[in-house]
């Protein structure tokens, strides 16, 4: 177990980073979120087909790379740095993990995984993005399994699903089993979202025909996602820190770069220290692969990403409040990520039982 990056991981990082630098600068992301198609599907094709990120977590027998969470985490760091509007986290991490971890998988699963690995299809786990791993709250959705024309159908209404509006396939967890529904049989209603680079949608299944895929441990899938989300949060925080450092070095007031004032230097030194620790937490979350490591990383990194984005806005002064500067994309992503897969408070509460620190009776 190591908390460092391997050479292979660094190669993957530089491939993703140079593609994003070329095709996904913040100005392009800003333009795109104002358009009808918030996702960059051309970029996604290149990422999934040329670099192979869509199949990272898919086993080799289904055309994937059979890589570990460590490699996926490095991709997420880079996608976070670019707030790239691609469905990697929702399709290639969450949905793919749900499929790969199925017990007694149905025959159809192999075919679905092949489509995902090839980048031909995009899948979406039909749960509210805010669902916390420790207690996947069924209260947020209403789901009913029935029969029609000899086949199973699902009736459900799921709020705030991330990555739903571009999904070809939905994976519906219901009573410990996972069901597949085609997007054509779902009503997907995009809603104005705080995070414009990963919008949410309400998804309604009205007696939608489904295929049972096998038994799923939803909490484990969400925990896996939470562990990996920490790397995206690290990427967001890193960009905010670097962008702010560059700005305070060249912004002059009182005939000095504002970065020479201790009031600013000390805040950035503290922020750097938070980011250093976020890197250790993110690496440990994928190296140790335990509920404690995942919740520790979420409890820390979610706050660090938000704090880094808030510091970036403040230390950029007026320009930080403008629509024109891309910082707000990072602030919105960081704040949405803080809620995604459990808030820091949810994860601290999880740790209380995981490490044996009960509260008052």
């Amino acid at each position, binding site marked *: 177990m190591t*908390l460092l990056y391997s050479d292979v991981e660094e190669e993957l990082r530089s491939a993703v980073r140079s593609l994003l630098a070329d095709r996904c600068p913040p100005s392009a992301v800003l333009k795109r979120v104002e358009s009808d198609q918030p996702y960059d599907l051309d970029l996604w094709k290149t990422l999934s087909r040329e670099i192979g990120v869509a199949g990272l977590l898919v086993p080799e027998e289904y055309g994937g790379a059979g890589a570990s969470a460590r490699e996926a985490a490095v991709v997420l760091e880079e996608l976070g740095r670019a707030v790239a509007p691609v469905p990697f986290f929702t399709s290639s991490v969450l949905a793919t993990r749900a499929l790969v971890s199925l017990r007694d998988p149905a025959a159809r699963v192999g075919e679905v995984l092949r489509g995902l690995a090839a980048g031909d299809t995009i899948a979406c786990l039909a749960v509210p993005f805010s669902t916390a791993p420790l207690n996947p709250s069924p209260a947020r959705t209403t789901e009913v399994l029935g029969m029609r024309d000899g086949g199973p159908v699902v009736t459900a209404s799921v709020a705030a699903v991330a990555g739903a509006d571009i999904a070809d396939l939905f994976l519906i967890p219901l009573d410990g089993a996972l069901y597949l529904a085609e997007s054509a049989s779902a009503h997907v209603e995009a809603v104005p979202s705080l995070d414009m680079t990963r919008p949410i949608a309400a998804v309604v299944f009205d007696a939608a025909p489904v295929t049972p895929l096998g038994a799923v441990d939803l909490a484990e899938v969400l925990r896996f996602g939470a562990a990996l989300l920490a790397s995206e949060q690290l990427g967001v925080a890193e960009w905010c820190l670097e962008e702010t450092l560059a700005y305070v070095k060249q912004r002059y007031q009182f005939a*000095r770069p504002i*970065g*020479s004032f201790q009031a600013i230097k000390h805040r950035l*030194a503290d922020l750097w220290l938070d980011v250093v*620790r976020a*890197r250790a*937490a993110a690496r440990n979350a994928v190296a140790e692969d335990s509920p404690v490591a995942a919740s520790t990383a979420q409890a820390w990194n979610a706050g660090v990403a938000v704090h880094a984005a808030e510091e970036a806005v403040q230390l950029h002064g007026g320009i930080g409040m403008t629509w024109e500067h891309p910082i707000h994309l990072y602030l919105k992503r960081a704040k949405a990520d803080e809620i995604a897969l459990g808030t820091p408070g949810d994860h*601290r509460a999880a740790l209380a039982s995981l490490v044996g*620190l009960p509260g008052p009776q």
Partner: protein
Amino acid sequence: MIVSMDEADIKRRIADFLAEHDPSGDRLEFLRARFDAGLAWVHFPEGLGGLGVSRDLQQVVDREFAHTPQLDYGVQAIGLGMAAPTILAFGTEEQKKRFLRPLWTGEEIWCQLFSEPGAGSDLATLATRAVRDGDEWVVDGQKVWTSGAHHARWGILVARTDPDVPKHRGLTYFVCDMTAPGVEVRPLRQITGEAEFNEVFLTGVRLGDDLRLGAVGDGWRVAQTTLMNERVAIGGAPVRRGGGMMGILLDTWRDHPELRTHDLHQRLLALWVESEVTRLSAVRLREQLRAGQPGPEGSGMKLSFAKLNQALTGLEVELKRDLTYDDWTFRRSGTVDFLGRGPGYRYLRAKGNSIEGGTSEILRNIVAERVLGLPGEPRVDKDVPWKDLPR
């Protein structure tokens, strides 16, 4: 120089050594022999207690010697952590031969004569004067926050040898003979009640020129070596998950359900997370060092350590609702143990963690300027001779 020595070679060498030297015999004889065999600090050169091999192998050595007489790391901390690396880097061959062996065995204790009443964070402005008199230097001044000065044989001393040049350039580094006439050590009582530190008054103290470490006027550069090692020593020790100061607090929490409140629970969990990610950073930093990729992360470790220690000890006193204090007696303390004594002592002692070895404010400046590349504050004292600075 033995360049290609691996773990097995070292173990064999230690086994041979232990076959010849009985660890249950005379402690000092054993330690001296261990030094002479190059098994003291193996990354030091041969003849100076080492074998000139990689520092990584020291953990093997420490493990193999775990059942034998140990050094007193508390009392010897300044010698081992600060004086030794400085002597190794800047000392003459005679100085290395003279000082390192008794330093390591603990026969001679070292203290640090850097800070002064008028020179704390701005150490380079220090006023203790050393004036040359033939082959000797005559030293006059006052030093402060000197741990262990009362049992030290030697002190590492920075003094001003040229007041007519800007402050950083007029300093020279010496080894101070603490038994020399004119050295007076007075205990300095702290907020904990005890005296861990001293004031040291130097009045007409005569030091031979052979006690000078590095060139005349080069004292600032020599002192940097000492200070970098001090910060590594203070911030460096990683503990297991839920260990160290956090472990003490967790034991209290688990043993006393009647003391728990919702507010304390929230704060405890937040501190647990911060302790854990700080610990993970220390683990990662150690991995980087082992892999030969030293990162700038080390500069921040002492900052996090100080902040956490203060928060944890403060929470412990509050959790226990403890209005008592174990002992206010004014006495000298032999060694420093941040984890020792009662919660009140730990709380008060932790206040020093953000001051000693570079205040947290100075460390933030160092991180900001050296790691993040931010511009320095405008310096009004940069080109002004030291004697003309306002004081």
